[in-house]
């Protein structure tokens, strides 16, 4: 099961268990009671899709946690869920936290659910794009290698081949001489099937026939 992972940060126990109960059926839920605890989870956990945080907590504020999360989990989407807000808090959420959604408490499960669905979708879309990008790069590298190999083969076959006029040996690029059959076998995809051509047949068979006749006349004589 590969369900999207959500991290919810809130200093109030009741809110955490409420969130857990509402969304545990659809998502893998991680909970943190403070910004510090959340940062530890971010450092440890891979593949967080969405980070949701309360704004007002003792210690680190929600905007601060979300701003820090941009370095630790740059691909995750960020949502602020908060009760009473000052304009400065919201500005910090935008300008430092780069939040995707801002939800006011008490949240209705419908509104929050839609925001989470959209955030997960956006995360997955970006993830897919990243995967496609690296797949494309890998495929291109593979093709490039294949083209290079083919070009080499073609060059081998298309280049001038020095051949001995008498014994029909081939000279390679290192000045060594090879039998024609060996050379073609090593440097091309050609596989040989052996047979006899008509003129060789006549020549070879003629010798055999003569030999046989000689043997027979000796036996008779």
């Amino acid at each position, binding site marked *: 099961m590969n369900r999207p992972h959500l991290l919810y940060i809130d200093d109030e126990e009741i809110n955490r268990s409420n969130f857990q109960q509402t969304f545990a059926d659809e998502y893998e839920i991680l909970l943190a009671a403070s910004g510090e605890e959340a940062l530890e989870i971010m450092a440890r956990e891979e593949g967080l899709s969405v980070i949701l945080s309360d704004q007002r907590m003792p210690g680190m504020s929600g905007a601060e946690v979300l701003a820090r999360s941009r370095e630790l989990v740059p691909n995750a989407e960020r949502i602020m869920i908060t009760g009473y*807000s000052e*304009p*400065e808090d*919201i*500005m910090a*959420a*935008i*300008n430092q936290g*780069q*939040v*995707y*959604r*801002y939800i*006011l408490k008490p949240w209705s499960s419908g509104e929050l659910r839609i925001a989470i669905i959209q955030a997960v979708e956006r995360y997955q879309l970006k993830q897919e794009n990243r995967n*496609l*990008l690296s797949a*494309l*790069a890998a*495929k*291109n590298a593979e*093709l*490039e290698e*294949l*083209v290079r190999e*083919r*070009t080499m083969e*073609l060059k081998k076959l298309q280049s001038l081949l020095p051949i001995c006029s008498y014994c029909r040996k081939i000279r390679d690029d290192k000045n060594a001489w090879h039998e024609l059959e060996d050379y073609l076998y090593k440097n091309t995809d050609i596989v040989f099937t052996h047979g006899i051509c008509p003129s060789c047949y006549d020549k070879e068979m003629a010798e055999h026939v003569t030999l046989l006749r000689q043997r027979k006349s000796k036996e008779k004589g």
Partner: protein
Amino acid sequence: MNQKKGRVLYVDDEEINLINFRETLCDDFEIFTAVSGQEALLLLEREGEMALVVSDQRMPGMTGIDLLTEVRRLYPDTIRMIISAYTEIHELIEAINKAEVYRYFVKPWKEDQLRLSIGNAVGTYALGQEIKMFVEQGRKQMTERLRSLRGDNQ
């Protein structure tokens, strides 16, 4: 080639702000201006996609958030910013949830901060475009390579 870093559209109903904005940033960026949301949309249709649209929030007719929501729909790659004299809570929340803004600034703006953020926004846009181009180029290369491989096999 244009030496300036990117195309930026600034929308504000007060002309003095448009002049001010242009004066501050025209050395680094190619600046376009419009006095209303409607005019901004017409300008975008005429001039094409911008790297960044910065808008005032409170203007007669279309608000900045309405404009940027429309910009987001029409040009999803363009980065969006609000500069407003007001920090009303529901406007701020709408700037996030509807317009999905990159930054929200309060007037009067601090020149350094504005310049830095606009530079970052334009850089983010350019990176996105570069990735798009990389993908397109990669696709083309792949097609070419496949074609040349098929040619070799014949």
